[in-house]
């Protein structure tokens, strides 16, 4: 399990989905959190992905995922 921590729900284990490369050199990496489904690019501004800097209003509580409504229930 990776040590990359999700900026939205603060759990570890994020996956690296893609690396943007130029001339063989990695320019940035796209990560995805398997807990809260947040995806981000490590080159984004701190206001969006900085742990402790990102607006707390958009945090997801990983301990309470049941509160999110399932759409299109029969």
């Amino acid at each position, binding site marked *: 399990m990776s040590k990359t921590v999700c900026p939205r729900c603060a759990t570890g284990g994020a996956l690296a989905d893609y690396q943007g*490369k130029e001339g063989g050199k990695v320019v940035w990496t796209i990560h995805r959190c398997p807990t809260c489904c947040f995806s981000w690019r490590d080159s984004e501004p701190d206001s969006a992905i900085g742990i402790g800097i990102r607006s707390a209003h958009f945090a997801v509580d990983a301990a309470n995922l049941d509160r999110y409504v*399932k759409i299109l229930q*029969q």
Partner: protein
Amino acid sequence: MMQDLAKQSRSITSLRDFLELLGDAGQAITWSERVMPEPDVRNIAVAASRDANGAPAIVFDNIAGYPGKRTAVGVHGSWDNIALLLGRPKGTTIRELFFEIAGRWGDAAAQISTVPEARAPVHECRIESGINLYDVLPVYRINEYDGGFYLGKASVASRDPEDLDNFGKQNVGIYRLQLQGPDSFTLMTIPSHDMGRQIMAAERTGLPLKIAVMLGNHPGLAVFAATPIGYEESEYSYASAMMGAPIRLTKSGNGIDILADSEIVIEAEMQLGERVLEGPFGEFPGSYSGVRKAPIFKVTAISHRKNPIFENIYIGRGWTEHDTLIGLHTSAPIYAQLRQNFPEVTAVNALYQHGLTGIISVKNRMAGFAKTVALRALSTPHGVMYLKNLIMVDADVDPFDLNQVMWALSTRTRADDIIVLPNMPAVPIDPSAVVPGKGHRLIIDATSYLPPDPVGEAHLVTPPTGPDIDELSKKIRAMQLGALQ
């Protein structure tokens, strides 16, 4: 010249054709200075959309980490671009564009032609294994707190899982898609939309639901496929009829009719019963949606043209491309539906936030008549959920000219001449709703007084109006632009 433009418009078959047409008219630019995916693409798209009348489409071809890839925004981002799509010159007024679309409503016939898959440009390149959407799509975060990377301008085609052979029951609609890893995405919809219905039918019956996601499409499809037409009418036929031009279809690898000339098509299958977290997404009211659990689709194949252009949209707090993309075509059906009962209706402006505010001009037949028309507007298919604030003006007021609307509000409105309808249906993402999906409606009667009202109309100044004056104002604008060159 007008005829040339109309002919050019009818010969558009693809995004590429349209970008070329726009480029020739000074309405598309290529941004070759190096940009970061975030925040540069968003910043440039927002800066462009400040000019609702004249903003160009922008094609980015030098995005850090995406060598050789291209993304386009703002293709429908200004009235001038919409005018060129409809075969009218730059500088055509919003009112003229409205009547151009309203005049085509229910008038023309569809022309659908079929291209064999082997000859369809969309299938030039095909990926069936080792699928990674990020290899093909130079995505970027549209708004800062979006939950991921979104495809904001995807036309999704699907067949009714219970009636696979029915062309008419095929659905094409614009839904927001969030990438959920290299080969998956979520799709957001509501039960009343065609896709919501099909998802629920597939899960009820256990039948597979296959879809084809078209990106970078014929520019008429995005305008006309977002329309609330009947479930059994084909959006392709409708778009062709409204464009007055043939639409070229082919088959996707998973058996769905798709546009033969699209840039990219992603074939996918729904994972029955599964839901994963989706959102937030900066939506058209200018606020973020919530986080919810949405259906997830697994990608089975990707087709694309050589050197494809990934088309996306900036959407958020208005004014944005979303408003020019759907505004007129939100207004025209309401106009047509109202006129079936009330030919006194002379124009409908539902440009603002998908019609959360609408302005309707009407020849007042008797005292209070405008309010009757307003109530009818609330019962049109779009009005049921969206028309939250309605401003009723007289026929001598152009609802597309907000200076005139403000004049009517200033001189013809009494503070008690309004109606508030409490606890009505509301579109769930309206942030002012009492609870999501339920809110109040407001009707402001800004029409003049008629008997038996004792006040009567004031003696009005009648400045010159009409097409001659419209032409003069365009001429002044053209002379002004000419003076700069």
